[in-house]
């Protein structure tokens, strides 16, 4: 097992400890999990499962929230 996992979070490279869950990552970024949604390798990661899903090397995550917007 590598000493660190390489991830892509919102298009940027990021490293995390092996065994980390998605919830650990969200917390380490200083984000409130109740205010964001996570896509993990192209699939929605339901909020209830964030603490259960372990991250793997090379995983791609999108973390989104709501911002002001009307049309484009």
């Amino acid at each position: 097992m590598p000493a660190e996992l390489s991830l892509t979070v919102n298009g940027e490279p990021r490293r995390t400890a092996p065994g980390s869950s998605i919830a650990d990552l969200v917390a380490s970024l200083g984000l409130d999990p109740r205010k964001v949604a996570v896509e993990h390798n192209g699939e929605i990661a339901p909020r209830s499962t964030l603490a259960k899903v372990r991250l793997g090397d090379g995983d791609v995550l999108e973390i989104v929230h709501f911002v002001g917007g009307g049309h484009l």
Partner: protein
Amino acid sequence: MTDTSAKTGSSDTWTVAGRTFRSRLIVGTGKYRDFEENAAAVEASGAQIVTVAVRRVNVSDPSAPMLTDFIDPKKITYLPNTAGCFTAEEAIRTLRLAREAGGWDLVKLEVLGEARTLYPDMRETLKACEVLAKEGFAPMVYCVDDPIAARQLEEAGAVAIMPLGAPIGSGLGIQNKVTIRLIVEGANVPVLVDAGVGTASDAAVAMELGCDGVLMNTAIAEAKDPIRMARAMKLAVEAGRDAYLAGRMATRRYADPSSPLAGLI
């Protein structure tokens, strides 16, 4: 005598996908100077629904202020939109994330065809609408002002039809009153003019045509005094609605005196 007053004021509501609202004005939350001004404009508009966009969190500055800190999603209904999506696939992906982030199935679908006109791509829009409806979403759909497209959207599961009055952000007003009226007459779901409103009279025109509501963003956000314009839009939507319910007089080709002609001295 029927009680027409019962249809106006606080008892005049509209319902979309089982949710009932008093305000017929939906406002966007883009283009404002800051969150404070945005929140004040929403308050002045009386809107009960705001549209919001779904975007990546800024992972390098997670403490940056968030919209939810200024506009309380418990008091104001957030309507996640797919602004910036040019394919059905992108729009569906965005709204799946929105549902996960907020738990809302009432969403606004818009799939744009090109950057120059920001006209909707109806083929992709219809495709996305069908998929979303099957997945349990209640899509309110931005579309061309075409009564046939509107009917097809309704068949595809749209819970509201939202034709453009003029191109997004143009402020040109309702360009084709005939098609908007035809859509209103043919629809079994709420119809809201979405895009094109520039000033208060445009909003009133949309409501006088029988629309259930109006959605706008730029007309308020880019006014010199957005908060005053928000209030103007609230009043215009109410005035237009009342005028529609009141039933306007017939037009005549020539003058018709309002005072009796008998007894002239």
